[in-house]
């Protein structure tokens, strides 16, 4: 029975998966952007200490960040909302597109080429360089959104997970690019072996 199963071409499987991810990410980014611009309610986190909460039971207090919803956000708040979400989505979509094109090229021809190594290096550098920028930009967006809620308490956190994830993905792409580059150099060597 096992023999009758199709032997998967993992490069092709990855390309299909990336294709789906590119479409979903693109649609998600576009829909989210349009919804925010159209005035969709915006969620904002504010400092709990600044809110006068109704009688809480003894031993219960407000957490540091309390999520609120701005039912009718102003143009500025919509802008801050976009700034706090769009850069991450845009970078993710761009990285997925680059990876999708790269796997397509590697699948059509030889994966161990100078061009594939160069594209992987470019992708890695993009993620390593743009990841922290996106991280700071989104933090500023969150901060401004929280400040603009006029509750008297601003709440925004610098979550280290996001830049770590971007850096890990970037260095991963750089490392794979280096593997491809060395494989290509080895191929050149082997081509001259009789």
């Amino acid at each position: 029975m096992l023999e009758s199963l199709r032997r998967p071409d993992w490069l092709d499987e990855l390309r299909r998966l990336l294709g789906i991810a590119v479409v979903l990410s693109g649609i998600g980014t576009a829909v989210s952007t349009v919804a925010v611009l159209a005035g969709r309610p915006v969620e904002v986190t504010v400092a709990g200490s600044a809110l006068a909460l109704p009688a809480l039971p003894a031993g219960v207090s407000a957490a540091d960040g309390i999520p609120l919803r701005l039912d009718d956000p102003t143009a500025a708040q919509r802008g801050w909302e976009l700034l706090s979400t769009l850069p991450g989505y845009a970078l993710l979509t761009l990285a997925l597109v680059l990876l999708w094109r790269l796997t397509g090229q590697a699948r059509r021809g030889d994966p161990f080429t100078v061009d594939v190594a160069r594209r992987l290096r470019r992708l890695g550098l993009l993620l390593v360089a743009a990841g922290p920028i996106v991280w700071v930009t989104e933090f500023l967006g969150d901060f401004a959104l929280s400040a603009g809620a006029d509750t008297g308490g601003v709440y925004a956190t610098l979550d280290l997970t996001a830049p770590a994830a971007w850096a890990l993905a970037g260095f991963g792409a750089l490392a794979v690019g280096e593997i491809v580059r060395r494989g290509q150099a080895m191929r050149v060597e082997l081509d001259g072996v009789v």
Partner: protein
Amino acid sequence: MPPEEAHRIEAHIDKLLAERGMTLTELADRVGITLANLSILKNGRARAVRFSTLTALCDALQCQPGDLFTCHPAD
């Protein structure tokens, strides 16, 4: 890996073939490599030779590796 530089190895396949009255095509058949690869070796464009290829060449030409190649001194 050694640095990329031009090698100074000369192959004497032409001379050995002439002495044995053998053609390059016949040698390629006996050794079991393509004529193209044998030409690359003959013309000094190969970057390396497998021991298995060298063994087959020595068998086919009834010679030793030293008869096949000369390393010229650096200028």
